[in-house]
């Protein structure tokens, strides 16, 4: 036990394993124990160790197979109850997972033999996902691979095998889908309708669904295909299968394909394929010079004979212009991509961990002089920890750091609501925004894109209002939020 900033620090290594979502729950439960200032229970991946060091913990040597328990307590006497709370929380999660008398199936195939399921959802660490996905394909089932960190050559193999067998592989890193009226992964609650979505982008799909919902248009199906499906390496294999499925679905009248910036040759081939289908297809493929997702939603509405509404916004318009750089912190990769494309047209190069071109890549510090945007959902930042739509720790740490940087002119954030996401993201983010604005000691506009619907468990209006009350300017449209942020810094140039 060592005295650290704000109390006493304690770090111990345990030879144990639990998944990232379980450990996040354990961390939160322990953080609520009286006398605990901070609690992080996580597997010892390099990324997690870096976070712990940034939090002021001195972590002894360990491996990604070790569990690190890091606590900061007010007094030395608070340590024992905190450690007891860690043990109790871990034990409780173990008990929960074995509470059923029925012996759980040992393999994906044997699980599928027990259930009349048409689709298997694979959510295991990326290194093991392909085996399970192949097991599902062998059992003749479509598969949604929620896992990320799956090598692209394994993705290609899965999709080739699936295509040969007339099956669909959704993913890897497929965060969002709606199949048979059921939302899978991170999914917003919208009214059913006759629009079908094929999405090589989880948060892009969510943005489109929520914009359409705000305009009164429902979605009948959303088939995620993974963010790399329209890359040159994968060639759109699952996008074609998904398009064929929706084309054959009599309840779908119009299809929209949403994607992060695709490989040009794959986009051309896809355009040709889509033109041959009986159902009209709109291609919402992000890229410089192409329409953003809000413009794509407007096109769909126009095709359906619906007017484009005034997209909702909350809070007072942020005061500007301000001097400094635009800094974006995102949980949605496509939302980050879209914001970079919008901003780059006016501000020039944007540095990022998912850069629009290789020379703009950030190093592992995720900081740089100039405009920058970080996608905290990228594979490199989710190894051994939950997605930032579930665990906001990394982004909140970074938010405080960027706000304290006098070079930061405007902060641009996203919040993604829906099933699977944090139950109340504003509960942590709104105070963090307030603190950032107050601590900056200068005007610091914060612009937020809040993607959701009022039917979502978190409630769009409730979340957006809380963020607005904290001082943020909040938009449903990510593109509009990005444009506002650009206006605020651009005016000072």
């Amino acid at each position, binding site marked *: 036990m060592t005295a650290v900033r704000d109390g006493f620090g304690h770090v111990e290594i345990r030879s144990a394993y639990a998944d990232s979502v379980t450990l996040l729950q354990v961390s939160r439960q322990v953080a609520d124990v009286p006398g605990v200032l901070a609690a992080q229970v996580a597997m010892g991946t390099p990324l997690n160790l870096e976070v712990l060091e940034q939090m002021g913990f001195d972590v002894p040597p360990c491996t990604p197979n070790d569990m690190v328990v890091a606590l900061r307590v007010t007094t030395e006497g608070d340590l024992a109850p905190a450690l007891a709370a860690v043990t109790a929380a871990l034990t409780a999660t173990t008990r929960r997972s074995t509470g059923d008398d029925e012996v759980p199936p*040992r*393999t994906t*195939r*044997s699980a599928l*033999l027990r259930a*009349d399921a048409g689709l298997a959802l694979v959510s295991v660490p990326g290194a093991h996902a*392909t*085996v399970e996905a*192949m097991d599902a394909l*062998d*059992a*003749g089932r479509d598969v949604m691979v929620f896992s990320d960190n799956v090598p692209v*050559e*394994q993705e*290609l*193999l899965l999709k*080739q*095998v699936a295509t*040969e*067998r007339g099956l669909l592989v959704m993913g890897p890193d497929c965060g969002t889908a709606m199949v048979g009226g059921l939302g899978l992964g991170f999914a917003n609650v919208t009214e059913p309708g006759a629009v079908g979505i094929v999405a090589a982008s989880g948060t892009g799909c969510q943005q489109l669904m929520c914009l359409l919902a705000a305009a009164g248009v429902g979605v009948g199906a959303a088939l995620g295909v993974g963010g790399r499906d329209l890359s040159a390496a994968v060639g759109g294999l699952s996008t074609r299968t998904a398009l064929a499925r929706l084309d054959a679905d009599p309840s779908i009248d119009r299809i929209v394909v949403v994607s992060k910036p695709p490989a040009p040759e794959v986009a051309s081939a896809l355009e040709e394929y889509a033109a041959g289908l009986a159902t009209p297809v709109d291609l919402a493929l992000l890229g410089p010079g192409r329409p953003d997702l809000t413009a794509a939603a407007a096109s769909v509405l126009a095709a359906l004979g619906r007017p484009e509404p005034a997209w909702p916004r909350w809070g007072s318009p942020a005061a500007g212009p301000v001097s400094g750089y635009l800094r974006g912190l995102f949980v949605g990769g496509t939302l980050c991509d879209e914001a970079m494309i919008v901003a780059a047209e006016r501000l020039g190069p944007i540095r990022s961990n998912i850069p629009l071109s290789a020379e703009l890549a950030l190093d592992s510090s995720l900081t740089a002089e100039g405009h920058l945007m970080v996608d905290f959902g990228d594979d490199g930042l989710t190894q051994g920890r939950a997605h930032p739509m579930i665990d906001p720790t990394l982004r909140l740490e970074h938010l405080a750091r960027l706000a304290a940087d006098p070079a930061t002119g405007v902060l641009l954030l996203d919040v993604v609501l829906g099933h699977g996401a944090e139950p109340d993201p504003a509960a942590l983010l709104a105070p963090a925004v307030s603190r950032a604005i107050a601590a900056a000691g200068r005007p610091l506009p914060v612009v937020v894109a809040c993607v959701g619907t009022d039917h979502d468990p978190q409630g769009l209006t409730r979340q957006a209002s809380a963020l607005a009350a904290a001082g943020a300017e909040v938009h449903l449209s990510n593109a509009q939020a990005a444009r506002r942020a650009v206006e605020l810094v651009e005016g000072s140039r």
Partner: protein
Amino acid sequence: MPLPPPPTLHVVGSASIWVLGQVAGPRRTATVLHAGTDAVYLDLEGACLAVLAARAVQVPCGVRTLLPRLPEVEAGTAASVHDGSVIVPGCEVLVTNIVDTTVPVLGADDTAWGAEQLATLVKERLDPVSGLLPPGALRLLADGDAAVVERLLGLGPGLTPVGDDVLAGWLATAVACRHPHLPRLRSTVALAASERTSVLSATLLACAARGEGVPEFRSLLIGVATRNLDVLDQSLELMLRIGDTSGAGLVLGSLAALTSATTPSTPGAAS
């Protein structure tokens, strides 16, 4: 035979418990019998061990990898097994996943239900395979007449002749339903297989005689054991996609065993 150079590719694979037993322990040498992009077959002290690419069927004597294609290997070169791994030239495969290839136990009522439902589901779809068999062979099989082994063993082209597939389907199902003629046919096949068919096929027949088959076959019989028509139907479709005739041959043999185990001529067969 000299040992191969150290492998440059290290991957993991899935296999049955039987295969795990074969590859465990101190180093033993093997020889490459046949090699293709989807499968490399080794002769390991008289039994066949297969290294499989991702698209290959998970045969009960194989280690299946997630490689799109296997490294080029020449027949006749040296390979080895050691401490849970299979090592072929250029590639080491460590068995990390266990695949259950064993058939379930079928009660008498389940067996009768399975015979009826499977016959209804297959309709005429097995006729092309039946047509490849000698006249009367299926009748002999139903009667448990050991003479059928001579008629079927090694019949057909390829590494797993269709006659062997039919026998393997019969044997694995006979283990599941405690067929009264199992001991007779099992011993006849065991005696003749090494002389009359390929090492791979003889190994698969030995697996079947222990009640092991491809996972799709296991699923088919689980459909029978649980009287789940959906599982039976889906597994049948998957079986019929295996090979040109292999899957259909296995189903034909299975249907013959299910049917004859419950006929009046074999009282108490499935008790």
